[in-house]
């Protein structure tokens, strides 16, 4: 994993115009993308957001000024064409190889990412026959399959269905927690609200840095909008509280001890996009944490108390012997009632 202060890409007085005498789209841009951060770019339509992203992805060179840093980069364009003479899996395998994977790994990752986006059934479909939404899934999978160090997303969510958007949100959280940098543009201001470490606003041809999210929501916004997931975990007797990854904490993730008045149980409240990776860390820790309960927070109520039986809750079964017995007894009681 890279250090937090490491520069991925840096623009130094960079400007770009199309043609020798064209007007400047961007000028005097100072911008610095650090490892492990999420960067949002905002601005009205036609102000050069895409131009800025293409500079950062190093697809285009600046007309003046400098770009430094060349991380392994993946880019998702605004509109991805279907006019390629490959099947979805075929194109992804080619792109995986271009990203530096071996053929076998590329094919496997292609399959995995298509499945993750719910497009596994389209693996053998020619690209020219894909719907706009499926085509966009291929574009996004192309960028994610090689675990890039810098991920540049130009309205990548547009055209995706709701489920695929959520998958992309989580994939972005995984990349930043894993030490990669993600730069994105999206027309929806709620997209990853509260997660961005830095926001750059384009006004005219200049780019201004805003701290954090750039909105009033702040760091806790990610949790306050009701997208929190509350996880209760129990460790060995006297265990120190679990340590959340930095990106999770920056997005407002918290740890409290003595959840529900029970000693040794810690209650973690994390943004929904981070829930999978926090659970993965908890379960793969040495020694692993025992997950007592996982609950989805209620809308608008900040961080709620975990309520068992919540419709949206995913309840983890207790694994301890005593609890397993208790569960069996419960079942017996239920049977009695039914009789």
């Amino acid at each position, binding site marked *: 994993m890279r250090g937090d202060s490491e520069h991925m890409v840096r623009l130094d007085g960079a400007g770009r115009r*199309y043609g020798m005498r064209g007007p400047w789209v961007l000028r005097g841009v100072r911008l610095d993308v650090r490892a492990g951060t999420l960067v949002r770019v905002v601005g009205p339509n036609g102000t050069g957001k895409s131009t800025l992203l*293409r500079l950062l*992805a*190093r*697809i*285009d*060179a600046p*007309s003046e000024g400098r770009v430094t840093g*060349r991380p*392994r*980069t*993946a*880019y*998702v*364009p*605004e*509109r*991805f*064409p279907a*006019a*390629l*003479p*490959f099947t979805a899996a*075929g194109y992804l395998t*080619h*792109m995986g*190889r*271009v*990203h*530096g994977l071996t053929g076998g790994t590329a094919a496997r990752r292609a399959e995995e990412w298509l499945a993750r986006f719910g497009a596994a059934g389209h693996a053998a479909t020619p690209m020219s026959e894909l719907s706009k939404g499926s085509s966009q899934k291929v*574009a996004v999978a*192309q*960028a994610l399959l*090689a675990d890039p160090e810098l991920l*540049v997303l130009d309205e990548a969510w547009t055209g995706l269905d709701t489920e695929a958007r959520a998958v992309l949100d989580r994939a972005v959280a995984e990349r930043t927690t894993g030490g990669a940098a993600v730069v994105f543009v999206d027309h929806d201001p709620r997209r990853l609200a509260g997660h961005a470490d830095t926001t750059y606003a384009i006004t005219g041809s200049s780019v201004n840095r805003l701290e954090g999210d750039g909105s009033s929501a702040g760091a806790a916004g990610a949790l306050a909008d009701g997208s929190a997931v509350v996880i209760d975990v129990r460790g060995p007797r006297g265990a120190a509280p679990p340590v959340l990854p930095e990106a999770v904490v920056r997005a407002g993730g918290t740890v409290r001890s003595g959840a529900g008045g029970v000693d040794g149980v810690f209650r973690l409240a994390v943004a929904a996009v981070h829930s999978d990776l926090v659970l993965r860390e908890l379960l793969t820790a040495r020694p692993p944490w025992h997950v007592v309960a996982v609950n989805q927070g209620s809308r608008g109520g900040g961080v709620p108390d975990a309520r068992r039986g919540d419709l949206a809750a995913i309840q983890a079964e207790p694994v301890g012997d005593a609890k397993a017995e208790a569960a069996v007894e419960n079942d017996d009681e239920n049977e009695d009632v039914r009789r």
Partner: protein
Amino acid sequence: MTALLRYQSALLLRSQRWLAPAVLYAAFLAVGVQSGQPVLDSLAYAAAALLPVAAWLVRICVTNEPPAARGCTAAAAGPRRAHLACLLTALLAVTLLGVAAVAVVAGISDAASTDHRTAVARGPAAGAGLLAMLVSALLGTAVGALTTWPLLRSPGRAVPALLLAAVLALVTAGSPARAALTELIDGSRDGVVPVPLGAVAGAVAAAALAVAVSCGVCSRRG
């Protein structure tokens, strides 16, 4: 680079846009080359025809990938390497075409000088033909690289420029292609198989320069 070449070759092959230049080239050979003609003359004719085909294939390879997909490839591999892969794919494809043409032409032609009196060894003649093909392929690639994206973007200007440049590369004094063809035709007249290595060196230099210029500006012009 292997991955890029593989991707670009698959793209060229599956797009079937290679068919038109390949079929036209075959037709051109069918019209101009007949069995029993002097081998070096026929090889010179086949090599000359390959130059515009090479330029055309470069144009096809460079414009084959939709711009958005090109953005993805350029971000992953770097725009210069991605563009270089397009040009190399075209060069490889046209070289294959040239090798096939030499095999056919050397096989069916008469192994003799223009007046059919002096014998010309078929093997060395085919070798000279391969070098002439290489010269045409390299110069054609140079012409193609300089007359398509990113240097010339509107097809209205690019296509006439490509045709004009291809003709000029064949007839202008001092051009390696013209030098190689002249050596072949003179060799056929005298019954001596030439080795046009000087022309190959000139063509390599010209192609390297053109490719460097094209790759150099590809990230500057959107």
